[in-house]
């Protein structure tokens, strides 16, 4: 190669590098600005919740100074809630409902997804599509028919009705996530297990569940979110304190007539948000891996 050619090649490489460098710089700036805007939008409400929860009722109602600052921080709202029997009941009810809903939903959706994605029976394709379509039905449309059903089995104003109701919302989506995940597992893996002597349940238990753990965790988080955070159904179906769950208990107990106990409401919101925050923080990596499984050939 002549010296001139080499020099030209070097210049072209530098030009290319500069151009790529500029493009990357713009992309980074754009990303940071967009992320900054979203971070502010999403973090301001919880921040406001936190500072309000640390104020006494007197400080909140005084409306002097900046509402973004706490002048006399106190944990009295938290202490009140922790020692308040109704709040303990709501927490316990929410926990029972959520644990049962997540368990029931996961058992049903893992079994359904395995049979739909792997056992290849007649109509399995249409059933898979059907499962997805049921997820598209808005929950509010099911309100009245479900109210009648729950009424007939005598579970109105009984938090056990939620254990029956929430899986109808969680199972279709969880099954859909799991079908996607199971489908990304090579077919030869179950064939190898079949030849090794496993039956279908053993294949599911010993091969699919461990291999599909990110997908299962993603689906579990979704079912947890549905069960822990749902508001409309408990609002419509439960009306006594001993049956209420956190979402409706907080507003029905801490808003009395036109008196809003903002400090306690905010503290209750924070306490109610703790379990989802802890679970998301620990399992976020699995959640992302589960939702994106099958997007690329592994």
């Amino acid at each position, binding site marked *: 190669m002549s010296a001139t050619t080499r020099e030209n090649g070097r210049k072209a490489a530098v030009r290319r590098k500069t151009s790529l460098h500029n493009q990357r710089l713009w992309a980074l700036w754009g990303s940071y600005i967009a992320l900054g805007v979203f971070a502010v939008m999403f973090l301001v409400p919880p921040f406001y919740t936190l500072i309000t929860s640390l104020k006494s009722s007197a400080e909140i109602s005084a409306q002097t100074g900046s509402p973004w600052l706490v002048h006399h921080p106190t944990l009295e709202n938290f202490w009140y809630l922790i020692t308040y029997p109704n709040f303990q009941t709501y927490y316990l009810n929410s926990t029972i409902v959520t644990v049962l809903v997540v368990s029931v939903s996961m058992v049903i959706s893992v079994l359904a997804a395995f049979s739909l994605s792997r056992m290849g029976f007649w109509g399995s394709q249409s059933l898979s599509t059907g499962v997805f379509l049921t997820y598209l039905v808005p929950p509010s449309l099911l309100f009245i028919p479900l109210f009648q059903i729950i009424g007939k089995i005598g579970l109105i104003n009984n938090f056990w009705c939620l254990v029956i109701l929430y899986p109808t919302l969680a199972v279709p989506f969880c099954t859909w996530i799991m079908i996607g995940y199971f489908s990304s597992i090579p077919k*030869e893996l179950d*064939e*190898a*297990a*079949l*030849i*090794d*002597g*496993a039956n279908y349940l053993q294949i599911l238990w010993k091969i699919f569940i461990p*291999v599909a753990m990110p997908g299962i965790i993603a689906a579990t988080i979704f079912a947890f979110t549905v069960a822990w955070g749902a508001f409309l159904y408990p609002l419509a179906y439960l009306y006594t304190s001993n049956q209420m769950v956190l979402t409706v208990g907080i507003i029905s107990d801490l808003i009395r007539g036109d008196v809003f106990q903002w400090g306690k409401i905010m503290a209750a919101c924070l306490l109610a948000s703790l379990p989802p925050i802890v679970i998301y923080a620990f399992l976020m990596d699995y959640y992302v891996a589960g939702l994106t499984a099958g997007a690329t050939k592994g």
Partner: protein
Amino acid sequence: MAEVSIRKIVKEYEGGVQAVKGIDLDIADHEFVVLVGPSGCGKSTTLRMIAGLEEITSGEILIDGDVVNDVPPRDRDIAMVFQNYALYPHMSVFDNMAFGLKLRKFPKDEIKRRVDEAARILDIVPLLERKPRALSGGQRQRVAMGRAIVRNPKVFLFDEPLSNLDAKLRVQMRTEIKKVHQTVRTTTVYVTHDQIEAMTLADRVVVMNGGVIEQVGTPNDLYHHPATRFVAGFIGSPAMNFLPCRVQDGANGGLAVRVTDTIVVPIPPARADRYGAFKGRDMVLGLRPEHLFEYHEQGKPNWTRIDLPVDVVEPMGMETMVHFFVEGAPVCARVDPATHAAPGETMPLTADLNQMHLMEPDTGRVV
């Protein structure tokens, strides 16, 4: 160890597509049989039917004399090695190999003894605690073989096990597989599309095409005595040359093949009896590249000289491939690497017609 018999098995998919069209095959105890053929010939489907992973439309499969058509894979006492290894990714190498034994409730010390023994045969003892993701392709394939060996099954089934490996590793693993078979002597059915793999590994090769068996025989049989044009063309690399020709009277009352007006070659007397009945008929002449030589006056003075213009020269080190065209048909000669052949120049050639094959153009049958 067991015999495997296939009786008129058919595999028909929805829509009436037949992947396997009623084949018969008997595999003897300890035998290493390779099913070979192009994509879609039905070889993998046949293997999967033996494994029980694919339902049989009609016909029978017998393992050790028992019909296994309705026996689930786990009860057929077979082991299979897959193209993509199919190792359980969350288990260590030891657990992968022990999985089948654990399911069959073998005692722990027996499992350990068997896994250690298989690991020793396959030279993977240091890998036993690793997960599959920490292994190379060749190591993974060894583990997959180990998983098959530990069960000590009646039959080993291999479904294109070397296709995912690079060329060098493939050759190495081929030798390993042969060595393992020589050690454990388990009846083996091996599927590949690579005819070299088939030739080097098999006791007998089964050439399949379009859902039927074209020919079954030892590698040498298939190479030297192909039954059809398909087998003649499929076995051997580079492939056999095929030239349209006519059998006609030759000099001194003998026979000759006329390829073109200028290429008329006498058929050796030893072959004349066999080909006499085809005198005057259009046939296809089959000649392997190694049976075409560069012509030397002093070398084979009685052989006919043919001059052909060289198209491409491919030096391979120990030999050189020279490509020509005869009336549009490609012809390859495997010649001495010392050749001076150059593209565009004419090269004098001669052929050993004692090794020729003559085929019917319509049926492809070798006569």
